[in-house]
């Protein structure tokens, strides 16, 4: 899949009806570009004070990444075709100053038309690691 950095517009309001794992009350988010080209974005909660996550599209870094969006997730999110879905993953700089890592185990999937999303929890922690080292260009 092509790199689509601004497939969710800068400043878009997103709705996560179920919250996200660890933050069940975080239902509303705003997605803001962190760098000019939008390759990294900041996902900021509008419900939980100070809750922010740095996110990025996975494919520029992991072209082989193929998260499976289950039927129920597709139905809940109203995703009828792949083009409806925007996928991004959280990026974390570890405490030990190692390279940033991307959470491929828990991708965020958002319907680009409605802004409704959820964080999936995939089954295979070996194929889709929770801390995949990110090689920056």
């Amino acid at each position, binding site marked *: 899949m092509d790199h689509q950095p601004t497939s969710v517009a800068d400043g878009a309001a997103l709705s996560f009806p179920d919250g996200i*794992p660890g933050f069940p009350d975080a239902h509303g988010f705003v997605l803001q570009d962190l760098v000019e080209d939008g390759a990294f974005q900041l996902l900021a909660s509008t419900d939980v004070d100070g809750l*922010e996550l740095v996110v990025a599209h996975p494919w520029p870094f992991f072209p082989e990444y193929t998260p499976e969006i289950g*039927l*129920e997730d597709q*139905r809940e999110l109203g995703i009828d075709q792949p083009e409806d879905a925007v996928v991004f993953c*959280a*990026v*974390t*700089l570890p405490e030990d100053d190692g390279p940033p890592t991307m959470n491929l185990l828990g991708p965020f999937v958002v319907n680009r038309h409605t802004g409704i999303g959820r964080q999936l*929890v995939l089954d295979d922690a070996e194929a889709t690691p929770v801390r995949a080292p990110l090689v920056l260009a």
Partner: protein
Amino acid sequence: MLVLTRRVGEAIVIGSDITVKVVEVRGDQVRIGIDAPRSVPVHREEVYREVERTNAAAAAAARRTADVLRTRRSADPEA
């Protein structure tokens, strides 16, 4: 925690629409079948907890991560 003893092939019912069945027991491994409405997410606990922990770590490091990524980008226009 409620603890119940079940034999292979037997099940327990949670609420009216969730059934958890013991499918097979082999050594210290138990295969469990779960029938639940599709709207009820079912996860292996350690995988779900790992995503919870990673979200917490990502949130705690968000400011620092954002600063570093911004700096690297501006230092390397080719990136």
